[in-house]
């Protein structure tokens, strides 16, 4: 007679934390921050409860796309050290559960956002989930080293969503905020890719560092940073910008450009000699870069009633 131990059930008894991990909480926190920024700087104010529910819906929608991504990518997650401990490859959550959670939360978040804010915002949220789960995860991620560039659009939608929740329409300012994250993603990610010893190649995911080489990746970091600067500065001359934002943005962009330039002129020998010090510094800087840009925009709007912010 086979003895059944209670320990045998361990793999099929996920805790609440395992389900929460499916939603990629760290990505959700960035989504919440940038969506809040879009909502705060919009020229139309929302009722605080409607605004809070709208932000929650956007966060849940982002989490839903994260769950769908984990469902689809479970096979490659299992083959990479960084992702092997995720709920599905580690056996804590079954793939079908992640799919069900992803689909259910997608539906809930889109419908609730439509009811709380407006249906244009709900449609954009639905498109964002589709873009991340289908266009990025299912199509681009395994087929092109430019996956991070086009896929980065999914992460760029939250401030636009926040804006549309408040105003019900899109404006150049909202698209520029979209552009800021869209252009920021490649140098941010490739700076990381340069110093992390990844096993994307073993998992069959084309990463620029492995398909085109590290020299080409350094060129790309500088190229995309050069393209990012005008987008970041342009926001300063719109209705949501002002002297404070422009000053903060100018300092951040000079520093970021300097970092990208330093990455570009180094070779692998130099990078290995100091254990990728410059690449790590630029990656850390890129996190502050985005946080401070959106922080400055919100501060500019908050100071406007006192005659201090804006143009």
């Amino acid at each position, binding site marked *: 007679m086979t003895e059944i131990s*209670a320990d045998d059930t*361990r793999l099929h*008894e996920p805790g*609440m934390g395992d389900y929460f991990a499916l939603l990629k909480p760290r990505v959700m926190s960035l989504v919440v921050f940038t969506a809040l920024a879009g909502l705060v700087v919009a020229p139309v104010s929302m009722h605080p409860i*409607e605004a809070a529910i709208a932000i*929650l819906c956007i966060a849940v929608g982002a989490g839903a796309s994260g769950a769908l991504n984990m469902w689809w990518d479970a096979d490659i997650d299992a083959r990479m050290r960084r992702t092997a401990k995720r709920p599905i490859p580690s056996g804590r959550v079954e793939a079908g559960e992640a799919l069900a959670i992803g689909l259910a939360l997608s539906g809930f978040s889109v419908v*609730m956002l439509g009811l709380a804010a407006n249906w244009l915002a709900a449609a954009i949220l639905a498109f964002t989930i589709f873009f991340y789960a289908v266009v990025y995860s299912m199509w681009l991620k395994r087929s092109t080293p430019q996956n991070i560039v086009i896929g980065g659009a999914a992460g760029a939608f939250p401030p636009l969503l926040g804006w549309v929740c408040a105003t019900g329409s899109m404006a150049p300012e909202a698209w520029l905020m979209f552009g800021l994250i869209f252009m920021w993603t490649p140098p941010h990610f490739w700076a990381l890719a340069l110093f992390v010893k990844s096993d994307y190649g073993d998992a069959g995911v084309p990463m620029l560092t492995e398909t085109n080489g590290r020299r080409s990746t350094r060129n790309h970091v500088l190229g995309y940073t050069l393209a990012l600067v005008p987008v970041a500065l342009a926001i300063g001359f719109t209705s949501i910008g002002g002297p404070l934002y422009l000053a903060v943005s100018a300092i951040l962009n000079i520093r970021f450009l300097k970092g990208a330039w330093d990455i570009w002129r180094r070779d692998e020998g130099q990078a290995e000699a100091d254990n990728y010090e410059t690449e790590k510094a630029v990656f850390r800087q890129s996190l502050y870069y985005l946080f401070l840009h959106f922080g400055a925009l919100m501060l500019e709007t908050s100071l406007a009633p006192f005659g201090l912010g804006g143009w």
Partner: protein
Amino acid sequence: MAIRVEHEMHDRRRGRNTGVGLILVGFVGIVFALTVVKVLGLGDISQMERFDHVARPQIEPAAIEASEGGAQ
């Protein structure tokens, strides 16, 4: 002595059930709060009077005819 079998598995189940319960309560709270905000934001409620289910003698045909006759 009573047999008591407590396993980590039971803690996980309890945690999961509590979590789902709290999410459902939160969802009800969100829908209620949103409903209150939307209803209070309607503004002049009399604009919706025609579409409610309250008897309004002033819009019955006899009353309308009488008021039109009075106007002539």
